[in-house]
């Protein structure tokens, strides 16, 4: 039984294979040092592994499919002294060149040992591929991959979103251990997997130009590879914190604590047998205060009375008790009710049984987070929505060596995402959210059985009363199965790779808002609640329901029909011929993509149909969206101009699906969007098409000394079919004259130059300078940027404007000064200090004006007339995005010292982010163009408001200045980000290695 299972398991694994087989290889020659003659049949082994090769008649060898990492490689030949090269770095997807010159044993009798250094320029890469290895990750001290990626040329990190070479965030792909972990459901992009920096062997960023084996990401690919188990047992433990007893709101060395801590362990070694090696890492990170504000505390009224001793009484305008009051008070530089607690595990298990290699990789995380993102919930933090998410990636990759120069790779991968957002006081018990009886147990007083407490009205500011309901309920369960197969064979100078992949998602969502409406409706309809709750939902409560893959009650369903889960499928086949002629490398490839987004399409897009009786879109009016097939050519060259200068050229076409969240809705909410006359800022994309990009890239790298090199890369991209908000006119006879939808409408042209300068360590100093000049223009910046213009004028923007995230100049300078072992005396030995300067020239914005509060509450009067995402009332002054925010500079500092205690290397470090505590303006108010004043209080709207009801708005201006102008809380609530960068943060840590 068991042997059969094993065979089935192996067969299954090789029946399929892996999308991005991302191991590296070592190639080179072995020659006689004296004569230069090739040595035929010399043995080259990767020490501690079963990898190895023998040279051919030309003295050449290739060792394929080596996991990324640092290795020791040994060459031996009868009659010659062995040569060992240690610390040789193998990068995923690249060839590491290693030539041996052996000395006859008649001349020398000692083995030659060489310590390898990473090459300053990559001679084998046909595109700009930036690699950050574990050493540099440690030096940078950043605890997130995103921050490291943001330092690379061509990458912009702005307001939490990553943009590569002017593309939108959902055009960046992510892989972990070769598995595609791009979040295909999020237009803000991102990775589905949390990676522990201590577990990472390397992070690479390809800002375009990748070979045909990569797909479904037009802008760039961020790849992370985990460490591999070692031959000897190693462990490490790291603990770092910013807690110095200075909470709440008190300073320590000029900084505040944000309740941050991170504890990580790693352990690796052989297990059971030397053929089986494991690496495991676990991490807990906790942050009590996620947003990090400058002076987020309204210290004083204008008359000098302290806020924290002054009672503010409810005016009763919203229906609350006028005798109730609160004291408006919170700690400096933080807002309560924002926390994030995450447990992560990353690991690999390598079974090295040459010619069969199996590598099991896993990544698990569980994150609980709570964010109020809104000052008006300050007195109701108990009911802030809690989000609980788990992710699990299991990847089994296998390689079977068919011969000296050919192998087959296979992978099966499974990814699982489960998430819930809920009221932390009642969890899964949605019926209790608005139940006054349940609320009374916590002392909250409802106005009737299902109506939660009215807001306070504090001089026009609508603060939520304790017990008010702040969230609905959402649960998601998504997973995918992926499999692929690839064959690589070396025929003469051709390294041919042929492969294919298949990835099928299952996506489920159950989302219900407005618990008060749900409860009142079911209580008022007890017969239907008992006998046919589904009928009650479909006839009365449908507008609140957004469910697919779950039935209306929340049971998972796989049945076709109304509530069927979404099953997008991405399949590909590719062929890559990597031709290596001496140092000249040609990467020629062809990729076939099959994209089935499992979207909806109208039978006649100009004649949408809605059944008012059932509140549904009838089956006859809707059909499955199209499936798309594309062939994309890729061509890249890398060749040396001299032995220290390499040139590369790349051309390629890329295609990917847009983020699928735009296309997926439950049948009820979809019908509601269609039938309602209200504005939906987040409409549905019916039958969206893929986004297509054509990219050209040219660059060269030059090593101008033994220690320094630079590379320059210029790029040009054409992007077509990006998603944009549109209004679709209908035919006469349709039940509406038009409807809104997301369509493939935008296009963009981006170009730029990337410069990277690297300085290898010399006289204790190493460093790098990265700089990007870019020009990103397009018809719109993001998928709903054109909403205002489209809704108001019916004008679809067709002219190119600078995109919101185009930072014309952006870069970083990193310098590391470090005493090595036995250097500098006992105090300075193994002491390091490094500094990271980052800068950018700001980003475009549009001066705008508007009058009237519209549907906006007075407290957000300085933002838009209507509120979140709705820009209809705003009018630009001058061309769109013709103004720019100021330049931004930031300096981080890190000092570390390693001492040896017994057999342990103990590294103590201090890290300071924003060393100078610079209050950098990173966003501005549209009306004034600065971050200090939104201009609202000086408008006639504000004056009319205050004078029209002085009793209610008696101290509105004081409160507005304190909350909005000094602390940007309205902007933070509506935009989701601050106008200033984070203040200085101080962290200390210890890292123990064995």
């Amino acid at each position, binding site marked *: 039984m*068991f042997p059969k*299972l*094993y065979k089935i*398991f192996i067969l299954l694994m090789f029946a399929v294979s892996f999308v991005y087989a991302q191991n590296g290889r070592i190639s080179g020659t072995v020659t006689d040092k004296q004569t230069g003659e090739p040595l035929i049949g010399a043995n080259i082994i990767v020490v501690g592994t079963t990898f190895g090769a023998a040279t051919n008649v030309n003295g050449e060898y290739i060792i394929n499919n080596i996991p990324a990492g640092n290795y020791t490689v040994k060459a031996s030949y009868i009659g010659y002294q062995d040569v060992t090269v240690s610390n040789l770095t193998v990068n995923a997807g690249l060839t590491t060149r290693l030539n041996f010159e052996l000395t006859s044993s008649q001349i020398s009798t000692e083995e030659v040992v060489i310590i390898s250094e990473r090459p300053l320029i990559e001679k084998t890469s046909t595109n700009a591929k930036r690699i950050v290895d574990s050493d540099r990750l440690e030096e940078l001290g950043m605890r997130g991959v995103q921050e490291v990626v943001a330092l690379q040329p061509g990458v912009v990190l702005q307001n939490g979103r990553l943009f590569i070479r002017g593309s939108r965030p959902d055009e960046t792909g992510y892989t972990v251990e070769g598995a595609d972990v791009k979040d295909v459901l999020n237009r803000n992009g991102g990775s589905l997997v949390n990676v522990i920096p201590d577990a990472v062997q390397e992070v690479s960023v390809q800002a375009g130009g990748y070979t045909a084996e990569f797909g479904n990401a037009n802008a760039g690919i961020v790849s992370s590879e985990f460490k591999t188990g070692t031959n000897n047992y190693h462990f490490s433990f790291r603990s770092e914190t910013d807690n110095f007893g200075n909470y709440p709101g008190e300073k320590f060395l000029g900084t505040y604590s944000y309740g941050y801590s991170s504890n990580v362990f790693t352990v690796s070694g052989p297990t*059971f*047998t030397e*053929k*089986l090696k494991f690496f495991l890492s676990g991490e807990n990170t906790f942050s009590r205060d996620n947003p990090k504000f400058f002076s987020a505390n309204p210290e004083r009224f204008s008359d000098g009375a302290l806020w924290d001793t002054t009672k503010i009484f409810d005016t009763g305008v919203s229906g609350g008790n006028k005798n109730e009051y609160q004291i408006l008070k919170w700690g400096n530089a933080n807002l309560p009710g924002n926390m994030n607690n995450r447990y992560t*595990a990353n690991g690999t*298990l390598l*079974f090295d049984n040459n010619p069969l290699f*199996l590598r*099991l990789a*896993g990544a*698990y995380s*569980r994150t609980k987070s709570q964010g109020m993102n809104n000052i008006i919930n300050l007195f109701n933090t108990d009911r802030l929505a809690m989000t*609980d*998410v*788990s992710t*699990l990636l*299991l990847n*089994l990759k296998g390689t079977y060596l068919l011969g000296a120069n050919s192998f087959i790779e296979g992978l099966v991968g499974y990814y*699982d995402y*489960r*998430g*819930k957002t*809920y009221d932390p006081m009642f969890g*899964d*018990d*949605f*019926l209790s959210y608005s139940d006054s*009886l349940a609320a*009374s*147990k916590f002392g909250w007083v409802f106005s009737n*059985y299902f109506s939660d407490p009215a807001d306070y009205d504090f001089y026009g500011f609508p603060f939520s009363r304790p017990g008010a309901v702040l969230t609905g*309920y959402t*649960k*998601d*369960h998504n997973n995918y199965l992926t499999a692929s197969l690839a064959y690589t064979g070396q025929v003469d100078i051709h390294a041919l790779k042929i492969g294919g992949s298949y990835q099928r998602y299952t996506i489920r969502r*159950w989302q*219900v808002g407005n618990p008060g409406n*749900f409860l009142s409706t*079911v*209580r*008022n*309809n*007890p*017969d239907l*609640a*008992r*006998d046919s*709750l*589904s009928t009650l939902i479909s006839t009365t409560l449908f507008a609140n329901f957004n469910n697919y893959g779950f039935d209306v*009650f*929340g*049971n*998972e369903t796989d049945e076709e029909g109304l509530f069927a889960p979404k099953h997008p499928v991405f399949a590909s086949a590719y062929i890559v011929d990597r031709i290596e002629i001496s140092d000249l490398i040609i990467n020629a490839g062809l990729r076939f993509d099959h994209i089935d987004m499992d979207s909806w399409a109208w039978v006649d897009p100009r004649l949408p149909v809605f059944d008012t009786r059932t509140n549904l879109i009838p089956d006859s009016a809707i059909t499955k969206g199209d499936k798309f097939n594309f062939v994309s050519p890729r061509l890249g060259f890398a060749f040396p101009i001299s032995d220290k200068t390499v040139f590369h050229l790349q051309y390629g076409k890329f295609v990917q699906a847009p983020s699928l969240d735009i296309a997926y809705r439950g049948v009820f909410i979809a019908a509601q969007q269609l039938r309602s006359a209200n504005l939906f800022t987040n409409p549905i994309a019916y039958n969206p098409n893929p986004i297509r990009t054509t990219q050209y890239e040219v660059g060269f790298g030059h090593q101008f000394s033994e220690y320094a090199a630079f590379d320059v890369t210029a790029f040009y991209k054409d992007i077509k079919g990006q998603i944009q908000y549109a209004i679709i006119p209908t035919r006469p006879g349709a039940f509406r004259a038009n409807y809104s939808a997301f369509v493939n409408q935008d296009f963009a042209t981006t170009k730029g130059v990337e410069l990277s300068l690297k300085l290898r360590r010399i006289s204790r100093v190493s460093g790098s300078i990265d700089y990007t000049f870019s020009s990103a223009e397009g018809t719109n910046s993001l998928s709903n940027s054109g909403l205002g213009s489209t809704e108001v004028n019916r004008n679809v923007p067709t002219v190119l404007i600078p995109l919101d995230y185009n930072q014309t100049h952006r870069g970083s300078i990193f310098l590391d000064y470090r005493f090595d072992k036995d250097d500098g005396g006992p105090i300075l030995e193994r002491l390091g200090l490094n500094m990271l300067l980052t800068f950018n020239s700001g980003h475009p914005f549009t001066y705008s004006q508007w009058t009237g509060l519209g549907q906006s509450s007075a407290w957000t009067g300085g933002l838009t007339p209507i509120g979140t995402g709705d820009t209809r009332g705003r009018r630009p002054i001058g061309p769109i995005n013709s103004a720019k925010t100021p330049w931004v500079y930031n300096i981080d500092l890190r000092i570390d010292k390693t001492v040896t205690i017994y057999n342990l290397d103990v590294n103590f470090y201090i890290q300071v982010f924003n060393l100078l505590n610079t209050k950098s303006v990173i966003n501005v108010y549209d009306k004034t163009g600065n971050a200090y004043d939104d201009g609202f209080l000086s408008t006639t709207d504000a004056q009319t408001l205050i004078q029209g009801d002085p009793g209610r708005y008696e101290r509105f201006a004081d409160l507005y200045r304190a909350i909005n102008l000094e602390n940007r809380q309205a902007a933070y609530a509506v935009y989701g980000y601050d106008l200033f960068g984070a203040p200085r943060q101080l962290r200390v840590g210890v890292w123990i290695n064995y």
Partner: protein
Amino acid sequence: MKIPYKHLVLLVFLYLTTVFFAGCVDTSVNPIPSSIDYSSQMKVVNLATGAGSATLTLNGQSLGAVSFGGELPSPQAAFLTIPSGSKTLVASFDNGSSKSFRFSATTDYKFRAFLVGSAADTAGPSLVLVNQRYIWQTKDSESGKPLFPADTAWISVFNGSPDIVINSIKIGANENEFSAPLETGKNSSYLKNAAGNFTIEVTYNNTQTLSFSYDLSAKSRYTIALYDESANLKYAVLLDD
């Protein structure tokens, strides 16, 4: 027994899978049930003048007979717990008439259903529902505390007579005059009074009075129902809680 490491790989894989799946968020818990069964509590009071006793069925289920001026279930019995929602109450009277009433039992409410009116009316008796409180507002519950203060009783008045209006009620020395006289089928809100033995005097048709003595218990609520024709006016003190 030595386990071949080929099998060991598979075992480790399965073990890790199990461990990690156990730590995933449980999305199988449903936030709403597929059926929500609300209940109500009721008693039926037969105040239909001239019709005699009534035999009752509720949604086709027999409840039994209730005499004129009586209640079903009996005063000693608890209120009947029924599923909330649409109900059909059929009353077959001793005088041979029968009438069907459709009503909705309000979710979570405790109520009385009064059969009122005169047998002589062409339309026959009618049904009046009087909600008393949520069923979970019991004497022992936190939410019931405001309804049942110590040493206090609550009294409501219901007019079940076909030909009177009720003007006021005097409990001991406390006189409560209704701003609008209670017509047939109308009831007053609960009136707060100290517990103890009091003379209760009801003024009806502006000048006439009905007086009786009653021992009001603390933490109890009562409905005083007047019924039958004015010439033969009767009263019943119904214990609500």
